[in-house]
């Protein structure tokens, strides 16, 4: 499977500017609402203002009602259809299949960031904070911690210098309570 993002490969400097140059999230509060295409997910977004790039940039947050997995991503639709930078709180480990990385280090478990290398190949990584297991666990369990971490990693903040707050518009349960799948209610023959 060819996973290379050719747009990022062609304009890698532009990609780096997108990710690392200062950005302002316009919405102080991002409200999560049920996703139209999947009832098990909540989603919210805000427009982002980039210091040097005028293309439309959107900050997306999604959260699963099933197991509290959430994702944060930055999109620049005029550049590439895929989000150019992401954070996954849970879900499968990513394989960094590069010859210079020893096999046992190729598995990058969640929570992790997803970015791209110069050749347009996706790469997952944990920053310093995520490499500390207790911190990683706390971040995976609290979407607002995740948003702060994501914003710091991508130089994104509110005008005030703070980070946007994520709230559930129609809370069905305590927002910070982690949902676990109840296997006892599933029939396994």
């Amino acid at each position: 499977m060819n996973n290379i993002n050719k747009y990022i490969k062609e304009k890698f400097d532009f990609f780096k500017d997108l990710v690392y140059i200062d950005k302002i999230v316009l919405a102080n509060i991002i409200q999560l609402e049920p996703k139209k295409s999947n009832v098990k997910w909540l989603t919210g977004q805000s427009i982002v203002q980039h210091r040097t790039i005028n293309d439309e940039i959107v900050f997306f947050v999604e959260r699963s009602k099933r197991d509290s997995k959430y994702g944060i991503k930055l999109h620049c639709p005029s550049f590439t259809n895929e989000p150019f930078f992401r954070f996954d709180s849970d879900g499968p480990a990513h394989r960094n299949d590069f010859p210079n990385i020893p096999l046992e280090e190729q598995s990058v478990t969640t929570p992790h960031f997803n970015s791209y290398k110069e050749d347009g190949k996706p790469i997952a990584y944990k920053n310093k904070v995520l490499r500390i297991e207790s911190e990683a666990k706390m971040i995976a369990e609290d979407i607002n911690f995740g948003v702060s971490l994501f914003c710091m990693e991508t130089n994104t903040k509110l005008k005030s210098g703070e980070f946007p707050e994520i709230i559930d518009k129609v809370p069905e349960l305590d927002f910070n309570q982690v949902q676990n799948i109840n296997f006892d209610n599933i029939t396994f023959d």
Partner: protein
Amino acid sequence: MNSIEIIEIVKSSFCNLTNFKVRQNAIEVITAYSTINSKFVSVFITFTNNKIVLTDNGWIDQNYYETPLYEDSEDIVGKIISSYKSSFNVKSTLDNSGTEYYYKTCEKIEQIPSAIFNLANFLVGVVNSFCIQYKDEKEEKERETFRKDANNFLKINYADNVRLRSALDDFKGIKFNAIVNKGSNLFLLTYVTGSTQYYFENDLRKSIVNFEIAVKSKFRDQIKERVTIINDKSEGYLPEKSSSILEILNEKITRKPIKWTEKEQLLELI
């Protein structure tokens, strides 16, 4: 470097590749098996209702492996999943919200590793099957464009006298790209195109069979001409390489195949 050293390196790397997450309700085994979209598959071990159950945690159903969505591949993916299910003896069940879980059960703790091995192999196969684009998009596009162009050309010149994708009344299953009626005369037309030699020759073979059947029809006396329109602009048009099949086609048609770049010849014929 000696053999033992190499063996040790390989063994320890493979072994250290497997990771674990201890969750409240399950142990997640982040296996050493990865998919073509660069995900390691996870197997979840849980103890429920006095059973050891290994599941995918609904991750396939919820697309946590982030496989692309290709239209029209449901059928083939369904077939692949069912054959992997029977090979690895994997079952599936739905929770009350409709999420599908793939799972295996074990009676004893000693059986867990082997069951993980099977479920992990199953998951890799299933995720990979979602990642493949089965339809040849370039071919579909080229075929569609040529079909439309040829249809339009016939429509403009023969208006209501042309029936597209039509069959002779006594061989309903054998469709011709077009049948033109002129008085009591019938003109049978087939199109041949393809983005590769393989697809092009497939069309040639279809034309050959269709015309062979046509001459067995009770309407054979009304069939004035059997004609093939060849897309000589297509990449699969390699007359020298396809010469033997073209020769057989020539035996089945009443005129030399008409090249698309010389399509006006058709107007002289019909």
